[in-house]
């Protein structure tokens, strides 16, 4: 494991390109986190509606997550 870390450290200078992939994944991560936060808040306010809220939460997370895949696969 230490070998791999050392190898990664020596190759830091050769980072290049794929900035759009990193930024896209960052945006998707923030989006998923926001959806998750609000879903938990909503479930806390109204525990009876947990099932409906969970479906909406998963849906919102999926739509936010799709941005990461656009950035990874469509960007060059």
């Amino acid at each position, binding site marked *: *494991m*230490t*070998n*791999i870390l050392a190898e990664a450290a020596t190759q830091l200078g050769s980072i290049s390109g794929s900035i759009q992939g990193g930024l896209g994944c960052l945006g998707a991560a923030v989006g998923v986190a926001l959806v998750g936060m609000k879903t938990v808040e909503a479930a806390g306010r109204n525990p009876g509606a947990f*099932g409906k809220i969970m*479906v*909406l939460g*998963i*849906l919102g997370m*999926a739509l936010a*997550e*799709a941005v*990461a*895949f*656009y950035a*990874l*696969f*469509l960007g060059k």
Partner: protein
Amino acid sequence: MTHKQVGKFFKVSVVAALIQSATASTACASEVKGERIFDILGLPVTNSMLTTWIFTLVIILLFRLLILRGAKLVPSAGQQIIEAIVDSMRSIFEPLMGKKAFSGAFPLLLGFFSYILIMNWSGLLPGVGSVGEEQIAHVSAATAAQYQAEGFKASESAGEMTKFIPYLRPANTDLNTTLALAIISFSAWIYFVGRGVGLKGFIKDTFGNKADPKDIAKPIYLSLFAVFFAVGCIDLISIAMRLLSLSFRLFGNSFGGEILLENMYRLAGELPQWISWIIPLPFFLLEMLIGLIQAFLFALLTAVYIGLLTGMGHEEQHE
């Protein structure tokens, strides 16, 4: 692949794959498409197709075995499992889609769910992705880059590159499979929307002016037609992008999961053998969760896309 000078050697990683206790080594290829294994009547058969056939058979046999003696009023244990799945799916999808479209599309949604679930979980079994053969290509300096682009790696001896080709590759790590699923979902959307609201209803819903003329002044109401038309054009683009997002989401999640497992497995290789299984273990649980969520999500998104147009009565509270 066969038109090139490639020798094949059976790789005895069977024993290794079975001995490495709970962990299935996922020697996953770094390619988007599956690798060709053999031909049937001139048509190439890839390793992901082979996995699809085997595990489709497993699904059919499993469901047959669970309801072996036919459905009864007092359900057997197996029938109860199936009924629980169907009932919970029904309670989620029915309010989204409206009764009419739901009764038509429900078998398709259940099919999506069970198919994708089994295909996702099949990647975690030992033997899937870890039993295969090693291809050795004799390369020169000129063709090395071409082979490297196909996933070949340099081996110890000079002038040779090797590539590990598993006999079974999880079906959803092949972009062809997920694209096919997305096309089926999209065709179903066209069919059910066409049957439910028709072309006229679709155009009215996409481009039509949704403002109430009693509420606002006439010039503003007329100018809103242009706004709603522009929104409709953006809507059309996003509908076309559904094909991409459905296939990429499923492919990216399962392919990324395979690579994650492989890397964790490699990280664990430096630890002593008796403890090394502990590093990939949490990620196997994560992959089981992700496989379930993605299978559910594919069915859910198909239902929502259809339901946005057919489930008018329930649309407001969900949007």
